[in-house]
């Protein structure tokens, strides 16, 4: 352990890495603070760069970027009443009302410190929980991996906001796309329409750039976010006031951290869902709860939800690193990059590549500490950040989408894939289909199929193995519980309602 740690420290302490982390941090704050541009879009556009870096700087850039972007989403919430990323949407009303009452600096400062401490908390959960889970995962065979992947897919649909039928359809679209190319059992070309370029399947990276990059540009030009001039805020004594306020609400902050870490580990649920749940919990647990989102604005829900969304960023890496099952869309994109880089996430990572793993842990903590000075500067310069006109920004993003997907394989096929997924992403969101299940389907599809086919070929179609192996059975039961969750929730709700009049 000590040996691994010192090796990790020497890996982290390089100029290249420092530069990459700093650049990714600034980039994350920039994208995060512009309403309409999400952290997932930032990740998709970062991938072409990460693609050319070594594994550690590549991972470090995505981690730093996402940590910063989730915080920076708070900035336009407070200044123009528009969340910068969906993760800040829960408490936008409270932030904005505080700003209107001259307490915007406090709202943002508390958001910054709560984000940083939340991020560190999530990072610590990752550091302590992941190696323990990896020990369990070491015992897994293809049967268990099949169930873990199925569990991930199920959770992705159940947790996705909105209709579950639509979530399932989105997932099926992702799964279908993952079957394009040579099949793994006998090498038969599926859905390639005779094209040899498609034999290797649809490249994940241009698909992501289209789904989250180009589609967002289309959305922004078709229904542009209303232009609003940011309110100026006084940033004097910002951090000191914020620190003492956060200390007063330390219980709320810890609650948010725990909720965020727990939700972040669920596949498909990221910072936005963590923030909504933490907001609801903070609201239920507070005497002032019913006034949240109204009046002069309240700082307590910001503490709770802002702690939660950043804690979720860290814990989303637990299933990603331990099982290779992404915890949210950003980790799904990261997983795609890791696979390209020849790093196979899974329990063996904790053994064979322990120094790399420890480096990832160090980057996590460091990125959250770096967030405080960078975030402080961003709050001070926030007026400027929000003045970049959409008419200039959108074409620039289009250029990066095109070049980014082109550079993956120096080919036009990838640009075409990007375009198709861009239009698909726009249409899906327009018809209220969630996009996260599409990504999970794309990433998990091959894992489900490979482990299933391997298992059945190994045992000559003895399907009982999926049910009778103890760990397999446990995972299956867990999947069924997740699957029945909406039904159970309704049943429990009904029972409680029946009991009330008595």
């Amino acid at each position, binding site marked *: 352990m000590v040996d691994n740690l010192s090796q990790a420290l020497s890996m982290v302490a390089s100029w290249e890495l420092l530069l990459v982390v700093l650049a990714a941090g600034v980039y994350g704050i920039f994208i995060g603070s512009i309403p309409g541009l999400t952290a997932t879009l930032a990740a998709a556009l970062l991938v*072409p*760069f990460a693609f*050319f870096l070594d594994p550690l700087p590549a991972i470090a850039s995505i981690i730093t970027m996402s940590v910063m972007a989730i915080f920076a989403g708070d900035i336009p919430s407070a200044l123009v009443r528009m969340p910068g990323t969906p993760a800040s*949407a*829960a408490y936008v009303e409270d932030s904005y009302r505080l700003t209107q009452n001259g307490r915007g600096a406090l709202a943002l400062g508390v958001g910054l410190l709560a984000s940083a401490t939340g991020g560190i908390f999530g990072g610590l959960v990752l550091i302590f929980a992941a190696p323990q889970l990896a020990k369990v995962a070491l015992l897994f065979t293809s049967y268990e991996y099949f169930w873990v992947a199925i569990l991930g897919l199920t959770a992705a649909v159940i947790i996705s*906001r*909105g209709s579950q*039928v*639509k979530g*399932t*359809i989105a997932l*099926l679209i992702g*799964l*279908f796309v993952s*079957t394009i190319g040579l*099949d793994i059992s*006998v090498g*038969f070309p*599926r*859905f390639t329409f005779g094209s040899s370029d498609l034999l290797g399947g649809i490249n994940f990276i241009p698909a992501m750039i289209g789904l989250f990059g*180009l589609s967002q540009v*289309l959305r922004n*030009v*078709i229904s542009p976010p209303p232009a609003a001039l940011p309110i100026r805020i006084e940033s004097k004594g910002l951090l000191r006031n914020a620190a003492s306020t956060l200390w007063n609400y330390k219980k709320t902050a810890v609650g948010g951290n725990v909720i965020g870490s727990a939700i972040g580990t669920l596949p498909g649920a990221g910072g936005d*869902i963590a923030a*909504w749940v933490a907001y*609801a919990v903070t*609201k239920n647990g507070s005497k002032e709860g019913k006034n949240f989102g109204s009046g002069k604005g309240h700082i307590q829900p910001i503490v709770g939800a802002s702690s939660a969304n950043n804690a979720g960023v860290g814990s989303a890496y637990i299933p990603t690193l331990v099982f290779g099952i992404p915890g949210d869309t950003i980790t799904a994109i990261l997983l795609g990059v890791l696979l390209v880089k020849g790093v196979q996430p899974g329990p063996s990572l904790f053994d064979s590549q322990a120094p790399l793993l420890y480096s990832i842990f160090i980057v996590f903590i460091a990125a959250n500490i770096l967030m405080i000075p960078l975030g402080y500067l961003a709050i001070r310069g926030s007026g400027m950040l929000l003045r970049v006109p*959409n*008419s*200039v920004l*959108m*074409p*620039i993003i*289009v*250029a*990066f*989408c*095109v*070049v980014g997907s*082109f*550079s993956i394989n*120096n080919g*036009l096929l990838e*640009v*075409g894939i*990007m*375009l198709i997924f*861009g*239009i698909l992403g*726009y249409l899906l969101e327009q*018809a*209220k*289909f969630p996009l996260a299940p599409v990504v999970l389907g794309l990433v998990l599809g091959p894992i*489900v199929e490979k482990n299933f*086919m391997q298992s*059945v*070929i190994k045992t*000559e*179609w003895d399907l009982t193995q999926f049910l009778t192996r103890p760990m397999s059975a446990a995972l299956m039961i867990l999947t069924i519980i997740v699957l029945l969750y909406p039904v159970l929730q309704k049943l429990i709700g009904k029972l409680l309602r029946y009991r009330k009049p008595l």
Partner: protein
Amino acid sequence: MTFDTAPEVEESVGKPENSYDLASGVVVVVFGSAILLAVRDYPTLPSGELGPSLFPGIIGGLMILMGVLLLGRWFKDRKTVRPAKEKGEAVVWSRWINAGLIIGAVIFYLLAVDFLGFLTTVSVMTVGLIFRLGTKWWVAITAGVLTTLVVWLIFNKVLLVPLPLGFWG
């Protein structure tokens, strides 16, 4: 764990997304059926069991099922659909043209980059789009050309991606 505070505000006021359900349901059912048709003559495993067709087959079947469920929901809720919002037609049209131009710009890249080269193609794309989206012509030219140069420097010089030179090369 409840998500009752999640922003499903629109759902409670007349289900505006419902108007899309009919179209998406039909598309999903048709697509699922097309998958089932396509995998019909896929080869089996040497032992005779389903191989390459198994997974796409399940996906296709589930798509049909989900599509039917979606159509069922549309049928049930069709009376409560809120009429489509009437907006200034002219404004909306120009936005749709903008979206079309963005898609067109990517297609332009696909068609032109091998001949015109990266620098020319992307300059034309970005300058044109920035101008069209409502910026003064000199801002559009400066920002567009600058973006192209920065992208070219990063990808060609730093990341060493061989971007097409076109007739310049």
